[in-house]
């Protein structure tokens, strides 16, 4: 039996199966999208994108994702700092709660935001009385993006702060540097890679987010229709080529970000 199992043919068959599975599952679908969006020639591709609904959705997504990312970089860095540097009641609980947005299905996240801020709720009613519109408008999309990308920056900055050698800080203080100067010269530079790396991950996730956004956005073309929802709409209305054109813009952007993150990590490891 064992000699049968050890036969070369089995080994090669097994190896080929695993690698083939990998290539067919991951590479083939990605190539398929690129192929499909150019299948009717470059003209059709350009035409799909020149549709104002399409390109406006791309720019809207970029704009809102940038706002959400900036918020998360600021808030995430602060939270990472608080969770590492200070001791206070409830710290362990907060630290485990950080990952909750990753664990929750995104549709559930969207529903939670809709229920909290939607029409008929306390906050929604108050905002409406003050003349703000949240749900089904751009603020709700930003909130949904912030919610789903919340853990990225925190989880990227925390290990860097943990590794920071306290003697560096002490040395700076001993040499007479003031608190703010120590922060900007010593602590901030060591947190920066995490802020950038985590921020880029959050940005690419915010660009791609669908589940949470589709529930809270009004999906009005040009105003609250983000790319992922646009793609979904195109698929539903049986126009996969239009969907593919916007998809490859988003995909190429995400791949670039992923590549940049990898480059940054490699440089970090080398230095």
């Amino acid at each position: 039996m064992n000699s049968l199992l050890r036969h070369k043919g089995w080994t090669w068959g097994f190896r080929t199966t695993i690698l083939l599975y990998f290539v067919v599952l991951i590479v083939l679908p990605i190539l398929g999208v690129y192929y499909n969006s150019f299948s009717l020639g470059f003209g059709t591709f350009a035409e799909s994108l020149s549709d104002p609904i399409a390109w406006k959705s791309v720019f809207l997504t970029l704009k809102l994702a940038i706002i959400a990312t900036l918020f998360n970089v600021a808030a995430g860095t602060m939270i990472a700092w608080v969770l590492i540097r200070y001791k206070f009641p409830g710290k362990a609980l907060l630290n485990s709660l950080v990952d909750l947005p990753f664990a929750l299905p995104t549709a559930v996240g969207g529903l939670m935001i809709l229920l909290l801020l939607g029409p008929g709720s306390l906050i929604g009613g108050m905002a409406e009385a003050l003349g703000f519109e949240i749900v089904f408008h751009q603020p709700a999309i930003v909130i949904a993006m912030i919610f789903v990308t919340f853990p990225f920056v925190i989880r990227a900055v925390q290990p860097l702060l943990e590794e920071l050698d306290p003697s560096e800080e002490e040395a700076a203080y001993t040499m007479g540097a003031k608190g703010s100067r120590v922060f900007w010269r010593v602590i901030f530079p060591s947190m920066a890679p995490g802020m950038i790396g985590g921020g880029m991950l959050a940005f690419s996730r915010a660009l791609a987010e669908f589940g949470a956004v589709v529930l809270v956005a009004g999906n009005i073309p040009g105003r609250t229709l983000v790319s992922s929802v646009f793609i979904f709409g195109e698929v539903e209305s049986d126009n996969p080529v239009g969907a593919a054109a916007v998809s490859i813009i988003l995909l190429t952007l995400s791949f670039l970000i992923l590549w940049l993150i990898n480059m940054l990590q490699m440089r970090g490891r080398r230095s």
Partner: protein
Amino acid sequence: MRNLWIGLTYLIFFLLIAAPLGKMTMSAFSQGFGGFWDALARPEALHALMMTGFVVIVVTVFNTLFGIMLALYLVRANWIHPRLKGLLNSIVDLPYAVSPVIGGLMIVLLLGPDSALGALFENMGIKIVYAFPGMAIATLFVTFPLMVREVMPVLQEIGSQQEEAASTLGAYGWTTFWKVTWPSIRWAVIYGVILTVARSLGEFGAVLVVSGNIMNKTQTATTLVYQDVENFNVTAAGGVALVLAAFSVGLLLLMEWTKRRKEVH
């Protein structure tokens, strides 16, 4: 200053996580426990939860087996050229960069009724898109990196010396794997399984595009929540969402526990 930062942290956690979660729980029970129960006892809700369960089981089994093997090959195999290995290694992460909706679109384009492959399967009588196989494939695509990325660093860390020693002493491939490799990667695999279950439980975008969201046929728990919201049936949506959230919180606790076990040795 210190108290200001701590207060601000609490405020963000309350506004972003505690308040929405609390509000959803209240809304699910807004018509009492009976309303919550009715939302779950609907035939379409039971069917949707069952579909989610099937997808989770199939995806977890496939991802675990293929993920472990691929991680082993990417770390250990000397029959793959290093350059090719590097390329394959970076391909593993690609699904992270793909929006779930686009992941679903890919499957529709590749295997949908209008595509060559889809037509071929259709002739054989197998329906892939708008049926269970498509949903499983879409979820497999989205969750693929999780297991590989958990197991690879552990394999790199333990090195290949012990395995080589075992083979030198005459152990066959499987024996070496079970007796030497498996004990060290065990907790990483369990952690990967939990991550895969959590992710496939909550997968929404890819499944929505591929399944067509047909009630009592291809509807999963997350797409049912979506449909309930579209139908303005917020209480029912809250009930199903609460069940999903409870599972997620349970998995999160399990993750914390596993993480500690993983670090022990």
